[in-house]
């Protein structure tokens, strides 16, 4: 991206002043190098977001922003329903409530070493992963409705999780306002056999080691210390979320034209929050959030069973569960006034600071854990929300590295078995059903997650707590 088109706010924040059809400015959080490497499309797309009705304050791009459809991935935008604000299916994305959860194991990487291969094999055997994989839970229609209403709380009630987990999941594990009746029969059918499955692409389950601590106080509060083994799970709302995204993207594109909203890009498809289609989408999208929360809870439950089978007495406690593709109603102080706005985070993580009332009391001192996923060979990070994040970008931070190379290009560079062998030499065990999938997801195909995390930290969006490196990766 051409830096000359941006106004420097600080070394880690850059402004695109409002001009033309823009209702508000756009702000990109990144260091100079990340800006230079960023797609020009991010500029175009974040400017487009700034033109949407009812947008508040500014359109924001996180340090890992890259070309999305409509909104950039790494985009954050708030809309006020009282000012004609909109909700956008493209502003949430196809994989609704895709996110990351990290579980503490109470074990060290050294404890796991003797049974590492068996652990990798059992996790791979019991956690369904990859194209076409199905879970052991097949939902009837009434159970589907209960799941779409209840989220992780439904999973816990069915015996697929621990009640103690719910405090450590956004929304207490259950997104309010879900309307299962807005979820189409096709979305339901895509989900029937997919509960408790990882999916494919960049989704994974990893056993990781805490390699570095940046903030000892927060790390202690989170229960993290160097050498600890943790489990991180990255996945979303599976076929149900994809189908809802597909259907509403289309319907909103058609409805926008009919209601006179001029879209600079069809993929910005949106509808007034107060409109019937806007309300229908919110009801369906919240049901999809519950699907994702239930899905990660079930996978967490399977993971616990696998650990207990190999290591008697092993107990996995949930550190936290974040979603990074959502639209949520939140209160924020904007220009000195407390307002209720609809925050879209597409490839961006909510990052509530210390004392936020939506956090459990155990996290009041530290702020919310912000979990940033890597990819097989690359590190993942635990950060924590900051007090100033609210004034910067409605308490939001980055979500991951983002691709540096297309899947096609990655296939030309690497072979799956070669990637697996190279990582094995570094002590990282990969289990996947697809050699081609592994090649397409080679660590070198991704940008440097460390640079993205450093920029988030330096910009004040979130504060670094710990760096994790993979020991085992079950690849979706």
């Amino acid at each position, binding site marked *: 991206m051409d830096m000359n088109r941006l106004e420097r706010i600080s070394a880690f924040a850059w402004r695109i002043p409002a001009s033309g059809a823009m209702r508000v400015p756009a702000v990109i959080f990144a260091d100079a190098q990340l800006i230079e490497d960023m797609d020009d499309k991010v500029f175009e797309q974040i400017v487009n977001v700034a033109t949407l009705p009812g947008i508040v304050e500014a359109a924001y791009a996180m340090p890992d922003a890259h070309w999305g*459809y*409509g909104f950039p991935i790494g985009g954050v935008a708030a809309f006020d329903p009282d000012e004609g604000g909109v909700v956008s299916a493209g502003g949430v*994305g*196809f*994989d609704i409530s895709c996110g990351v959860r990290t579980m503490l194991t109470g074990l060290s990487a050294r404890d796991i070493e003797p049974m590492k291969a068996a652990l990798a094999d059992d996790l791979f055997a019991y956690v369904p992963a*990859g*194209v*076409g994989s*199905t879970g052991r839970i097949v939902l009837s229609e009434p159970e589907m409705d209960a799941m779409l209403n209840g989220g992780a709380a439904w999973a816990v009630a069915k015996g697929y999780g621990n009640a103690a987990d719910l405090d450590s999941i956004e929304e207490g594990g259950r997104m309010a306002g879900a309307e299962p009746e807005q979820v189409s029969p*096709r979305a339901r*059918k*895509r989900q029937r056999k997919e509960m408790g499955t990882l*999916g*494919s*692409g960049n989704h994974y389950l990893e056993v990781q080691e805490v390699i570095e601590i940046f903030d000892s106080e927060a790390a202690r509060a989170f229960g993290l210390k160097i050498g600890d083994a943790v489990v991180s799970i990255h996945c979303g709302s599976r*076929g149900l979320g*994809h*189908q809802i*995204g*597909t259907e509403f*993207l*289309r319907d909103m*594109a*058609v409805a926008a034209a009919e209601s006179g909203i001029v879209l600079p890009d*069809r*993929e910005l*498809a949106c509808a007034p929050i107060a409109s019937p289609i806007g309300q229908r989408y919110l009801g369906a999208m919240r049901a999809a959030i519950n699907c994702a929360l239930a899905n990660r809870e079930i996978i967490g439950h399977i993971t616990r069973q696998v650990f207990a089978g190999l290591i008697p007495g092993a107990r996995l406690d949930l550190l936290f569960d974040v979603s990074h593709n959502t639209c949520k109603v939140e209160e924020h102080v904007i220009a000195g006034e407390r307002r209720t706005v609809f925050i879209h985070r597409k490839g961006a993580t909510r990052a509530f600071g210390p004392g936020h009332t939506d956090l459990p009391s155990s996290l009041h001192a530290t702020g919310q854990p912000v979990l940033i996923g890597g990819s097989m060979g690359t590190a993942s990070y635990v950060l924590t929300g900051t007090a100033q994040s609210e004034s910067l970008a409605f308490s939001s931070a980055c979500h991951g590295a983002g691709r540096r190379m297309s*899947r096609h290009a990655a296939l030309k560079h690497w072979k799956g078995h070669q990637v697996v062998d190279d990582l094995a030499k570094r002590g990282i065990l990969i289990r996947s*059903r*697809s*050699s*081609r*999938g592994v090649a*397409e997801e080679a660590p070198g195909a991704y940008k440097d997650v460390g640079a993205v995390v450093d920029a988030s930290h330096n910009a004040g969006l979130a504060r670094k707590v710990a760096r994790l490196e993979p020991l085992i990766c079950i690849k979706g």
Partner: protein
Amino acid sequence: MGPSLEAAFEQAALALTAVLTDPSVVESQTAVDVECEALDPEILLTDWLNALVYEMATRNMVFGHFRVRIDGLRLRGRAWGETVDVGRHEPAVEIKGATMTALKAIEDRPGHWIAQCVVDV
């Protein structure tokens, strides 16, 4: 690309399969019919591809051969394929949906049609 809108749609479907697997290894064992209707040819293209994504996901199938008939803005298509065989197809990635990014369904010069869009995986 193709000499007609129908042919271009068939090629777009083949490209969709190529995201997942090598289309040449897919056997035509079963035929699945889909129908869609839209307000313009571009949305008709995403509807066609998304109908295939849905059939692939719910039937656990992969398709390697397609036939499309378009009458006005109404499409009737048939896709031939088989159940996913992980060993033989090595499916790389699930397709979440066809998007409206870089979406085109046009005759860019006489007798030369383009049907394209980005698919999300």
